[in-house]
């Protein structure tokens, strides 16, 4: 806890909307270029992950993920008041799961129909 504390406004809600994995993202800014709401801004440091400047303006259309050439670099994060209502029940075991839970079940890797 030795970092300085600043006067900053409350974070806009939803807080994140879009999340970048700095290990995968190469800062190409393709997502910045196409974001319909300009949620994303280029990082002042070239080659770094974009900044989420206006998460409060995200439409959750997912086109930044569709546009990205590096799978896993961008994750669309539904705000908690949305994701918390996505609940499902496994007919075979009776288990209940929800979006964003700790220790989720293994991913379903089947791609969309093509």
């Amino acid at each position, binding site marked *: 806890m030795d970092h300085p504390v600043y006067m900053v406004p409350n974070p806009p809600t939803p807080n994140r909307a879009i999340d970048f994995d700095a290990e995968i993202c190469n800062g190409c800014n393709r997502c910045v270029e196409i974001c319909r709401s300009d949620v994303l801004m280029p990082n002042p440091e070239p080659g770094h992950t974009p900044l989420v400047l206006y998460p409060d303006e995200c439409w959750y259309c997912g*086109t930044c993920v569709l546009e990205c050439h590096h799978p896993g670099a961008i994750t669309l994060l539904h705000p908690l008041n949305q994701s918390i209502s*996505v609940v499902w029940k496994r007919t075979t075991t009776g288990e209940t799961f929800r979006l964003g839970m700790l220790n989720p079940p293994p991913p379903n890797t089947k791609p969309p129909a093509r």
Partner: protein
Amino acid sequence: MTTWHEYIQQQAHIPEWPYPVRYGEERVIKTDVLVLGGGIAGCHAAINARRQGVKVTVLEKSNTRWSGNGGAGVDHWLSACANPCSQVSPEDFTTRALIDSGGYDCGPLRYVNAKESWDTLLDCESMGVQIRDVHGEFKGAAFRDENTELMFAYDYQSKFDLRVYGYNMKPSLQKELRRLGVEILDRVMLTSLLTEQGQQGSRVIGATGLHTRTGEFYVVLARAVVLATGLPGRLWVFSTEYRATFRDPNCTGEGMAAAWNAGAEFTRLEESVPDSATLAYIAYGVGNAHNTWHGCPIVDANGKEVPWVDRDGSDLTTTEERFLPSPGQPYMVGHGLRIPPTYENHVKQLAPDLPKRISSGEFALPLYADLSRLPEQERRAIFGLMVGNEGKTRIPVYDTLTKAGFDPDVDMLQVPVMPPGAYVHSNSWAGMAPPQWRQWASGGVVVDWDLRTNLTGLYAAGGAIFGAGAHSSAASSGRYAGRKAAEYARIAPDTQPDLNQIATEKARIYAPLQSSSRSIGWKELNAGICRVMQDTCGQYKTEEALHLGLYLLQGIRESEAGKVYASNPHELARAVECLSIITAGEAVIHASLARKASSALLNFMRLDYPAIDPPEWNKLVTLKQVEGQVTPGELPTDYHLRPPFAPTYEENYQQHCALEQ
């Protein structure tokens, strides 16, 4: 590090605006056809105008690659009556649609779509969009035609609605724009139309725009203009705190306001529909049985299945029947026209008395959408094909849910737990909101059989035209309007812009850069405008409250909107949007004052005129500005089949379509 707050914490300084700032700098462009809005309608308009050999420019607020309400993809293509498998003719379909809408739909828009929707889809296929089951995954399915490999939705017998793999629709269209040499002005937001001599009601000769990243001012002079902007939004409800809107929040009525100020004639502006807006659930991402999920079995907490019923209320005994017309019923156009549909047109649905049966304890909450009970191909068609390709569901629902472990083969998706009354129609399962929360319905400009407005040089496509629409209707009408605009551009006389009109517009849009005491930002301004619309133009309307609404909006325009402050080009664009939203609100209130009768068909309730749909009011109430005065008028609902037009759809189409037969 991802967010601005994290950046501040780590770097200890505020990053500078990343784009050059060019407030007030002017860029003048000349073109033949100017298309306003680069969404689905705008791209098709631009492509088809360009195919006629004229110079074409597209003005797009965002980036044409994925922009617009339909920009994130499409899973079903409606009204393709001319596809080789269709059992319904464009004439029958349009006649039925006009009857079902009580006559309030736009005949030319419907007919153009019914006639050209299939050819438009073939255009898309040639640009790289998959429209057939070429890999044979659905071979043998009841909804697949084995010769054409086309797949149908909702009504497997009539075969005019197609299932398509349209997630890449917009990138494919943008590629075609570039291939054809269409000039694309991305990130330029329309602010006004230019008219001959700067006069309201004169020929439209171009438009002005504002670059949303640099603040640069654009003047585009054109021989013909196509209005292809989306439905005005953020008019009744605005909150970024709990965001979840089905419509693109970037569509805020610049096109509507610009056309209104230029003197274009509108109709159906009084209509609004409920909007759960910021209280909605993730669209098609919670249990439901509507649209994309049509036909999905719904079970209660104990696994008891809710029956599907036919138009007489009788329980269906098989799954197949959910996708087939009743005996003696020619076809089902479905819920796209009105809810509930007429008896003739009724689709199969979940038992409509479900709220009563939940209240009585017959069905226990929560309910679940259990795709695992469907045959494998039906399940895969809903979740893998449709959810996998529809706008706002490929990543937000398919990708997100499958990565989190959801598997439709074994998992039931829960329906949100709501009061029993909310389960009346699975379309409402997207969430509930207060009744004063409304949204723009089907209002738009009046067009003739050229899809031209009352203004010379101004054509329209998609949501800009009054009447119900969808992805295919935006595309087909864009295709048609693009041809017609190009045709006019070839013969249009030269003209000069009015410099005073440009200077006045420039002063208007840069005003928010001047801060003053008690300035507010665009968000608070937007929310305040919405409050006026909720209070004075909500579900129930009266003469006095509507007049109060006009008074309050005018007050906001002069006071708070006059002092709205923007600290960068992005905020400036948002502030200017709010000015359009005020104009859209004023027009809606004027239209609500002009219709002195309630209408169930138009979702329009006047407390002071309670009789519902009296026959003498079965007409289109029109509205336009003449010399700055809002001037109401009226048109018969079949205006498009009366002189000077021909008496049938097909004759009018043949006379006007500008296609070589």
